[in-house]
């Protein structure tokens, strides 16, 4: 279970590097699956550990893509920091007490999609304004956030399917 998750996680980072570095669909669209990857990290991981994983993953992505080093980390760290709060908000505190990982099969598609939407929105609310750095109008920023959240959330749902456990397995 553990090795399967680690391999999937590394594969997803590679996919994110390709999405960021090789595929440039539009200036209005940024695709990012890192928020869902952070949300799908085992519940047993404490916030500090989640923050470290988010930081390292962000730096790897930034290093292999054209983005400025630190840009992804600036946006992803708030997602990592608020992960437990988001989980409590969407799934309730039972999930954290039972130390149960996020799973589409157990928690349902609706709740998982909502959690992904919130995490992705938080990510792009920081990422897009910092990426634009005051050089773009508000309308551009708003449209870019909307499009990026919509596309990234849809793609992230499939990523959650890959990363989340199919049975009630625990990270051990």
């Amino acid at each position: 279970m553990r090795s399967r998750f680690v391999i999937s996680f590394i594969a997803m980072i590679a996919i994110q590097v390709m999405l960021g570095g090789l595929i440039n669909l539009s200036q209005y669209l940024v695709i990012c699956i890192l928020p869902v990857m952070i949300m799908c990290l085992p519940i047993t991981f404490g916030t500090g550990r989640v923050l470290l994983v988010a930081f390292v993953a962000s730096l790897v992505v930034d290093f292999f893509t054209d983005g400025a080093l630190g840009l992804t980390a600036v946006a992803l760290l708030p997602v990592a920091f608020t992960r437990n709060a988001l989980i409590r908000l969407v799934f309730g505190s039972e999930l954290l007490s039972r130390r149960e990982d996020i799973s589409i099969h157990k928690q349902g598609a609706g709740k998982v999609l909502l959690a992904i939407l919130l995490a992705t929105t938080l990510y792009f609310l920081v990422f897009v304004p910092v990426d634009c750095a005051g050089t773009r109008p508000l309308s551009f920023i708003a449209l870019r956030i909307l499009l990026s959240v919509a596309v990234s959330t849809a793609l992230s749902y499939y990523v959650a399917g890959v990363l989340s456990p199919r049975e009630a397995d625990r990270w051990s």
Partner: protein
Amino acid sequence: MAGRKSYGQIWSAAVFLILEIAAILMLTGTGTLQDIWISRASHRTHALLWGTGERIRNYFTLDEQNRALADKNMELMKAVQTLGQQALSFKNGHLYDSATVKFRMIPATIVKVSRNSQHNYIVLNKGSEDGVKPQTGIVTTNGVVGMVNTVGKHYSYGITLMNTRMSVSARIGPTGMVAPLEWDGKSTDGAVMRGLPLHHEIAPGDTVWTSGFSSVFPSDIPIGITQKSKLVDGSTVEVAVRLFQDFSALRYVIITENLDRDSIAEIEKEALK
């Protein structure tokens, strides 16, 4: 258990802050646009913080500044009085004599003032030990405030213009008609001038000044502006005056004492014999 949880939360927040700061530092080092943007935001925040600090500091020194301004106002008023006398002497073909400046001025702070009755009063923080005498005027640069009635050692009590028992000799325009000015009994910045002759045309917007005929108030202190006028009993005109000095915003005043008042009273007594 709760302490352990809060310790964990503090630890997480600290890790988050450290990593976020590290990411921002990396970003400013590699992204030129982001570097400029973040520097600008940082400068703006600094300016805001310093500006707010400065505003708070200024707020706490306002009282001191107001006192200084009140003193400065008094000095300016004295200067205006002197220049007025000089101009008058020059106009009359005489050389200016400093002895013609007849008013002594004492700055004071209001300790208490009433505004809600028909007989309003004022208490000032200067008394006989500061040289205040009864029957002296209370003014500001915005007009007449009242008159000192009773003087204690450190405080003095007076009636304000917002008192139905008080009237001030006032003049419309620099050389116009003179009539008593009284409070209208309603507002904190309204007065009326009664008994003006019919033949004198009064235009709304004319400035009303102290006439200087009362030996209590110096002449030519602007008091207010004329408003609507109306005919009273078919024989006289009554004109409304909007005062420059709003009595709801009073704090610092100047007590004026006519140094020739005793001589004037003496000569009046002689004449009545």
